[in-house]
């Protein structure tokens, strides 16, 4: 069974087209959903959650029709909202039990599960405290527990590390890593923090202005950005090899100590490095395709400057997440 299989989905709000002709086919696993503000992430999330029907197109999520099986669909998904979304006066265990009740679990099962998942997310000792006494980090864990209470097949996490201090963020990521490794649950992670996506996800969907720019595994996307190399050499004239590379159409950035960063032209074959090194009486000691990090790849594919709203740095992201989405 595929996790997401939607075809030609479009959705507009009045004259504004939030999603246009989106087709996605995603396997079970952990998926990062990234895009600038206004890219259509929220609209896609609403459709994935069965909260919004598309204007055109259709498909299935976890085998449920996105137009007709919305209640069943939400029974299979655990959603962790970005907002604090807690109910005042309740205690932790009551809050998670309420989540189970709202999913339609028998009350006794919901209560038992609430104790289990609270212990699992590390709130076992705090479960009888009122929600007002929870720290931001614990509220995030609590929301995760509420999303897990009915043992969903898919977890939809909206900014799970938002507003957390560095220690809290690392703790949350570690918890999610363990959860994914232990349960094998599918996760769709929607965040502005590309570092989180890089750490947790094996697939990625890049949305831009309502369309899917890229989707695939990290390895696939990284493969497609090849053409940049890190080079190190010994012997010969130190400027000989760089000069020969420039002559061949490469962009060369010298890093010192016989090292350089190379941007090769299209159709470049790596054996050419060896030929040029031999011609310059040099020996190559390192030839490594440069691995772009997700942030760099994102900015390249969206053709935007790093200040456009998505941040590789969590501190920068906390500012950008304050803005609304579509």
């Amino acid at each position: 069974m595929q996790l997401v299989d939607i075809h030609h989905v479009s959705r507009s709000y009045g004259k504004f087209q939030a999603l246009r002709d989106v087709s996605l086919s995603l396997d079970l696993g952990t998926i990062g959903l990234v895009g600038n503000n206004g890219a259509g992430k929220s609209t896609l999330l609403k459709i994935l959650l069965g909260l919004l029907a598309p204007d055109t197109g259709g498909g299935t999520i976890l085998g449920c029709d996105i137009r007709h099986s919305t209640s069943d669909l939400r029974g299979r998904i655990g959603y962790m909202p970005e907002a604090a979304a807690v109910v005042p006066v309740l205690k932790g265990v009551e809050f998670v039990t309420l989540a189970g009740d709202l999913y339609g679990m028998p009350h006794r099962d919901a209560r038992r599960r609430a104790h289990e998942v609270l212990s699992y997310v590390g709130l076992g000792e705090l479960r009888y405290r009122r929600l007002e006494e929870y720290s931001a980090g614990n509220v995030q864990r609590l929301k995760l527990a509420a999303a897990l209470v009915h043992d969903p097949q898919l977890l939809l996490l909206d900014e799970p590390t938002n507003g957390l201090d560095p220690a809290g963020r690392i703790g949350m990521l570690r918890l999610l890593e363990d959860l994914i490794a232990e349960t094998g649950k599918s996760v769709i992670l929607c965040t502005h923090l590309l570092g989180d996506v890089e750490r947790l996800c094996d697939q990625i969907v890049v949305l831009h202005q309502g369309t899917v720019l890229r989707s695939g595994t990290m390895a696939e996307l990284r493969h497609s950005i090849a053409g940049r190399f890190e080079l190190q050499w010994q012997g010969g004239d130190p400027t000989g090899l760089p000069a020969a590379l420039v002559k061949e159409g490469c962009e060369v950035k010298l890093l010192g100590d016989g090292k350089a960063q190379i941007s090769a032209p299209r159709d470049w074959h790596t054996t050419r490095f060896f030929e040029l090194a031999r011609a310059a009486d040099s020996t190559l000691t390192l030839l490594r395709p440069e691995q772009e990090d997700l942030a760099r790849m994102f900015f390249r594919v969206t053709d935007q400057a790093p200040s456009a709203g998505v941040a590789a740095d969590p501190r920068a992201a906390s500012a950008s997440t304050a803005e609304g989405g579509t």
Partner: protein
Amino acid sequence: MGIDNVRYHGWEGELRTPWVACAAIIRVAMLQVFRRKSYWVVIGLGLLNFLLFWSIIYAVTQFDIPRDDQDKLLGAFGFSSEASGGQENGYIMFMQRQSIIVMILLAFSGSLLVGADFRFNSLPFYLSRRIDRRHYIVGKLLAVGTLVSLLTTVPALLLFLEYGMFTSSLDYWRDNWQTPVAVIAYGLVMSTVLSVLLVTLSAYLQKMAPIAITWSSLFVMLSTMSGQLSRRAADRNWHLLDPWRDIRYVGKLCFYAGKRLAGEVSQGANAYYGIFANDDEFRRSLWALLILVSVCTVAIVALVRRVRAVEIVN
């Protein structure tokens, strides 16, 4: 903080219809209200009023009080010494008194029960589960309605039980079977109107002070205004401006319908079994019913629009 040394366990079971979630919403609302110590002051007042009526019925039925004094005592609380009839006004009076306490309680609890869902973004928590907006709205209306019933209908039914227990027992219950039906109907009217108005008001105003001010304006200011207008214009129809009185009028209709349902015959001056003073009052009751239905319809439309405006995914 690390993860507790426990493993993840799955859950296997059937999810039930989302409508059962309404029961959870009611339970949580009760928890929220009864956990606040300050609300117990108001609830205590309700209990005191209940005990007062309870004691009066107990005293009259258990102690040897002269008939005239008995009539006076019971009459002061709307009851009659005739156990087989004339009790309706007593229950109406009791529920009306309790409703004052309910008004105060609702004025303060609206922000907690409903306003907080909008103010602190709790609504996405509810609506991202299996329930949708219909279940949420019905759940919240039932929650407020339950609170109203706990303070009005339930104690009124207990008084009915008490009256029967301490007088002629089965005879009283058998002769007045329509009374609990009317009490429940009146309670339903009160619960419905108050819950619709409170939930809508709280969804828009959200904070306690504006809700309490608007709520009291609605029920105190309009009541005073309608009284003044009625006196100056010498026209009792101005009383229809007062929602509180409208609820009572419809309550009387419920008791009247109960009597009619029981097949009791009432003729001449007592054409309304002593429930309505005259034809005018009866007609006003019908207008009151129309007004309440209209107001509730508008309020529900406004509530649905407000809930629909909330984004679940930001």
